[in-house]
C-alpha cells in the first residue's frame, strides 16, 4: 500500500470522527502556536535590538576600566587621555568623546523630573548622531568657558515646558547633592527607541561637569568613533589601548577593557536566545501533552477498529500496511494540528508584534520547527498504537465485536 493510499484512508478516518479529531489536535494547536509565537517574537526582538544597537554606532568602540582591577588615580582614564588619543590617532579616529554620566533631577518653574547628565565635547552631537530641533548644540566657548549650558532631549523639553519653547529657560539641576542653575541652549530629537530604552538626558560641557562634580579630569570611559575607512576597528582599538597604557605607564597590565556595539549585540542576543529557549521549552511541554493526546486517541481508535483491522488482514493487508495506515493517521492528525497551530502562531505573532511595537512576522525557522515538531510527534506517539494494530492476530481481530 502506498503512502498516498494510507493518507486517503487516514483522512477518511479523521473526518468520520470530526469532534474527537479536533479535540486531539487542540493540544497540538496550542503547543505549536505558542512555540511559533515565542520563537517569532524572539527573532523579531533580536532584529529590533540589533537595528537599535547598530544605530548607536557600529564604528564606535568604548574603552572602560576593568572592574576586576584596582585602578590607581594615575591610571584612570582621563580628559588628558582623550586629548592624547585624539591627537595621536587623528588619521583613523573621527571623534573621541568622554563617557561621564551622573544621575540627577531637573527642575523648571513648575515641573521636576529625573534625568541622566552626560558630558559633551564639541563632537558629541556627531558621535551620538543627535539632531537638533531647537536652539544650538554646545560650542567651543561653552567648553572653554565652563559654561553652565545644557542641551536636553525633546521628551524632557515637553515634560518641562509642554508646547512652549524650552530654549533660553533656566533650570535647577541637582546631582551629587549639589544644586546649580543652568540655561537650556538647545533641544535635540529623541531617537526612536524600543520601549524602556529611552531616558531623559541632558548634555553639558565636559569641562563644566568636571568642575561641578570635582572629577579632577577623571572619566568613566572613552567612546572612540573611527573613520569608516578603517578596515578592522577591533585591531585598531588595540593600538589605542596600548597607547593609553603606555601614556599612563601601565603597559600590559590589562587595566582597560573595550566594548563594541557588536559585543553588546552579541551579549544581548545570547541573553535573549537563552530566554527564548527557556520559554519555548515550557511551551514545548504542551507539545508533549498534545502528543500524549494523539497516542491516547490512536489507542482508542485501534481498539475500536479491531474488526476493521481483522477484515483488512483477511483481505491481504500485511503488517507494514496496517502499521503505515495508523502511523500516517497519527502523523496526519499532528500535521493538521501543526498547520492550524502555525496559522494561529502567525496571527499571535502579528498582534504580539503590534503590542510590542515591533514589525514581527512569523519566521521561517519557527515554521520549519512547527513542521518538524508535528511530524516527529505523530511519528513518536503513533508508533506504539500502530504497532499494536499491525500485530493483531487476524482471527482474533475478525471475531472482535
Amino acid at each position, binding site marked *: 500500500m502506498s503512502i498516498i493510499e494510507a493518507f486517503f484512508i487516514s483522512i477518511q478516518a479523521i473526518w468520520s470522527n470530526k469532534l474527537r479529531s479536533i479535540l486531539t489536535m487542540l493540544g497540538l494547536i496550542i503547543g505549536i502556536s505558542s512555540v511559533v509565537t515565542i520563537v517569532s517574537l524572539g527573532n523579531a526582538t533580536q532584529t529590533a535590538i540589533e537595528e537599535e544597537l547598530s544605530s548607536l554606532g557600529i564604528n564606535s568602540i568604548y574603552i572602560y576600566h576593568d572592574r576586576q582591577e584596582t585602578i590607581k588615580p594615575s591610571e584612570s582614564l582621563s580628559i588628558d587621555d582623550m586629548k592624547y588619543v585624539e591627537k595621536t590617532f587623528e588619521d583613523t579616529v573621527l571623534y573621541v568623546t568622554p563617557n561621564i554620566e551622573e544621575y540627577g533631577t531637573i527642575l523648571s518653574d513648575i515641573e521636576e523630573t529625573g534625568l541622566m547628565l552626560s558630558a559633551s565635547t564639541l563632537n558629541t552631537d556627531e558621535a551620538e548622531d543627535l539632531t537638533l530641533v531647537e536652539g544650538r548644540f554646545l560650542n567651543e566657548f561653552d567648553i572653554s568657558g565652563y559654561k553652565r549650558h545644557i542641551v536636553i532631549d525633546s521628551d524632557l523639553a515637553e515634560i518641562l515646558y509642554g508646547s512652549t519653547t524650552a530654549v533660553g529657560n533656566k533650570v535647577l539641576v541637582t546631582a551629587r547633592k549639589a544644586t546649580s542653575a543652568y540655561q537650556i541652549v538647545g533641544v535635540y530629537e529623541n531617537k526612536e527607541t524600543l520601549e524602556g530604552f529611552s531616558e531623559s538626558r541632558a548634555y553639558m560641557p565636559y569641562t563644566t561637569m568636571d568642575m561641578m562634580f570635582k572629577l579632577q579630569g577623571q572619566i568613566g570611559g572613552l567612546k572612540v568613533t573611527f573613520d569608516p575607512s578603517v578596515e578592522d576597528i577591533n585591531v585598531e582599538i588595540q593600538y589605542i589601548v596600548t597607547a593609553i597604557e603606555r601614556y599612563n605607564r601601565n603597559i600590559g597590565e590589562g587595566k582597560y577593557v573595550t566594548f563594541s556595539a557588536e559585543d553588546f549585540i552579541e551579549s544581548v542576543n545570547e541573553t535573549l536566545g537563552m530566554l527564548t529557549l527557556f520559554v519555548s521549552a515550557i511551551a514545548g511541554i504542551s507539545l508533549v501533552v498534545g502528543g500524549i493526546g494523539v497516542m491516547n486517541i490512536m489507542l482508542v481508535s485501534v481498539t475500536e477498529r479491531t474488526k*476493521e483491522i481483522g477484515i*483488512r*488482514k*483477511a*483481505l*491481504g493487508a500485511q*503488517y507494514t*500496511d496496517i502499521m503505515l495506515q495508523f502511523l500516517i493517521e497519527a502523523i496526519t492528525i499532528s500535521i493538521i494540528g501543526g498547520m492550524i497551530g502555525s496559522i494561529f502562531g502567525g496571527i499571535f505573532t502579528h498582534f504580539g508584534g503590534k503590542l510590542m511595537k515591533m514589525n514581527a512576522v512569523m519566521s521561517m525557522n519557527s515554521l520549519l520547527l512547527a513542521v518538524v515538531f508535528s511530524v516527529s510527534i505523530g511519528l513518536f506517539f503513533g508508533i506504539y498504537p500502530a504497532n499494536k494494530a499491525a500485530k493483531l492476530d487476524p*482471527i482474533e481481530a*475478525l471475531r472482535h465485536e
Partner: protein
Amino acid sequence: MLVVKNLTKVYGTGDISVRALSGIDLTINEGEYVSIIGPSGSGKSTLMNILGCLDQATEGEYILDNHSTQTLSSRELAVVRNKKIGFVFQSYHLLPKLTALRNVELSMIYAGVPREERKRRAIEALTKVGLADRVGHRPTELSGGQKQRVAIARALVNNPSIILADEPTGNLDTESTHEILKLFNQLNAEGKTIIIVTHEHDVAEVTNRRLTFRDGLMVSDQVVIK
C-alpha cells in the same frame, strides 16, 4: 488445487490443550464445489481458517497450488490471502464507512493495483453480482443479501483460486439465500473452486461434494453426481 495431509490443530498446551483437528487428509481439485458440514465444535471453522491462511496447522501439511503453506511467514501468508483466496463471511465483514465500490477495492489496494484499474475492476465485479446500481451505497443502505453480494464481489475481484465462504447464508432470509447460492452456482460453473462451510443441509445440498466433520475428524466425504 488444494492438498491437506494429516492436518492437526491443537489449541493451548499441556492439560488444557484442545484438539480441534486431528489428522485430516483431503484433496480439493480446481473447479470443485464443496461444502463442509458439521455441528459447532466439529473443527470446520478451524479448517476454514487454515485453508484461508488465517492460521497455521500444528502438525501436518497444507499445499495450495503446489506450494506448502506450513513454513510461510505471516507476511507471506498475507500475500497468499490477498492473491489466492477470496473470503465470504457470515456477517459480511464490510467496512461500514466505505461505499460498496471502496469495499470491493480494498483487497486490490493491498495487491498494489493502480487506482484507475481498481475502480474499473470493482465496478466489473459489482456488475457481475448484480449491484451495478448500488456502487455508491454504504453497507447500511443495503439489504443483507446485497451486502453479501458486495462481499462476494470483493472476494472475486483479485481473481483468487478458491472462494472460502463461512456460513455465507447464515444471516439471510430464504429468498436472499437462494440468490446467493445461485451466484455461487454460477461462479462454480465458470470454473471457480468454492468451499462453503455451513451447518444447514439445504445449503450443502447445492454443492457437488459434501464433507462432514465431527469432533475434529472428517467422518464422510460424499461426491454427488447431479
